[in-house]
């Protein structure tokens, strides 16, 4: 197994007294897609925010390419090479599509290669180029999701975190998004994908962890994606 790009070791995260994430360990290597599924309130989003440095209290260790990044400020985590596509997309509705995309440049540490990356991103998501000067709030949900991923990619991340990118999207758009993820991983990016659609992701990702009540209950390979009974048991545990 190759050296993991992103590694969580016994991570515990809490906003106040009660921990939301309780001892999660996982690793994602370059070119790998790892899924994180689980019921509402399991701690999936908090796990991602803890990696970003946006949760006030985090214990355990989070490493990026072997270097600890636990508890550092979000903007530093981004410039170190971790990009998040947040839940609900967080597109700035009053800004144009292009302005939203430019905001993603704030987290980019490599100054050159922007044009090439932009060309590649426009190839992945043509809508981003097509509606460049339109107000982002006027885009459909699926288009906004594509913009959110494009905005994360322009930061040239080594690790891409996605929080429920399929939420509220039509099946054809979900296919576009998953297709894009397959292309993104080929550029040596490590992808951690949080989702509610358990079976879809378990069948798609290289490995999928089931998170419940802040702990990983089970890990699945694509071959086990159809094992509904086991999955339900992990959800109910």
């Amino acid at each position: 197994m190759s050296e993991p790009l992103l590694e969580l070791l016994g991570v515990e995260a809490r906003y106040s007294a009660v921990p939301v994430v309780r001892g999660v360990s996982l690793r994602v290597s370059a070119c790998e897609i790892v899924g994180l599924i689980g019921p509402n309130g399991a701690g999936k989003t908090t796990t991602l925010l803890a990696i970003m440095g946006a949760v006030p209290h985090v214990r355990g260790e989070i490493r990026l390419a072997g270097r600890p990044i636990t508890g550092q400020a979000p903007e530093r985590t981004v410039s170190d090479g971790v990009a998040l596509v947040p839940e609900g997309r967080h597109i700035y509705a009053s800004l144009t599509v292009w302005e939203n995309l430019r905001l993603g440049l704030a987290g980019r540490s490599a100054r050159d290669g922007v044009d090439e990356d932009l060309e590649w991103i426009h190839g992945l998501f043509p809508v981003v180029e097509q509606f460049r000067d339109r107000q982002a709030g006027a885009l459909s949900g699926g288009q906004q999701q594509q913009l959110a991923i494009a905005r994360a990619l322009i930061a040239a991340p080594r690790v891409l975190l996605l929080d429920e990118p399929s939420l509220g999207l039509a099946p054809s758009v979900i296919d576009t998004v998953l297709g894009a993820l397959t292309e993104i991983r080929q550029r040596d990016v490590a992808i951690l994908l949080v989702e509610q659609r358990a079976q879809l992701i378990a069948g798609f990702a290289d490995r999928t962890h089931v998170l419940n009540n802040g702990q990983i209950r089970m890990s699945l390979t694509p071959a086990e994606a159809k094992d509904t009974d086991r999955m339900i048991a992990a959800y109910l545990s």
Partner: protein
Amino acid sequence: MLLQAIIDAIAVGALYALVAVGLGLVFGVMRLINFAYGEVITAGAYSLYVTRNLPLSVSVVICFAVCVVMSLLIEEIAFRPLRGASPATTLVATFAVAIALEAVWLIAFTPQGKTADLLATLNQSATHGSVHIRWLTITELAAGIVLLGGTALILARTTIGLQMRAAATDFRAARLLGVRANRVIRFAFVLAGVLAAVVSLLLTVSQPLVTPTFGLDVTILALVGAVLGGIDRLASATAGGFLIGFLISFLGDELPSSLSSFSTSFTFGVVILALLLRPAGLFAPLGQSSVDRV
């Protein structure tokens, strides 16, 4: 002279609009009403007094430097350590800074006013028919247009301006995109400092007597204007600041002389009425509620 009163009122409005922008920029990125802003204006005015014997250009440069450094220092020393604290805590901190600095002015300069009349020549008039326009009025108008336009351009065209707009909408999401929080906040304080310096310069022309509360009065009135217009957005806050300045000057000119000293009372009467009818601000988008404002 109605026309005369209107022209004067527009100029005063422009000055208050600048103060409202200084407050609105910081409010936008921090959701913080910076009561200490008036002290930055006061500091600039006192610097003009202290440097009154130096060449005018040197004095002006020092005034800008003092205001920008002061603005930044307040953010570094008082607000940065409180990042993430509750809005009530930071609000109290801005009061604390304002009151502490006012005490400093009292000790350093005594309660007696100090005269800073470097730009007194601007009080001379350019006469056109029966309308007398003071050079100050023209300068205030020009400064208002240039600085408001300049601020708008910075926000619209530059990367840091884009980041400020994003931060004003959703700071947490902006940080998660890699926008550097402290850099954006520092920039807002620098811009506010530059605006405060211009306000100091212009205000000392009509009020050359600098007292410890020199900047506080104009700040509170401009803040009322910003809230009146809608402090959530820079444009509406600016318009509100302009309106309050306009009203104060216009009512002061046009009310019968027995009532003109009450122009502030009349202005606040209008403000109360306006906020009763439109609590989210006069220039806020229709249908916006004022519920989650701090």
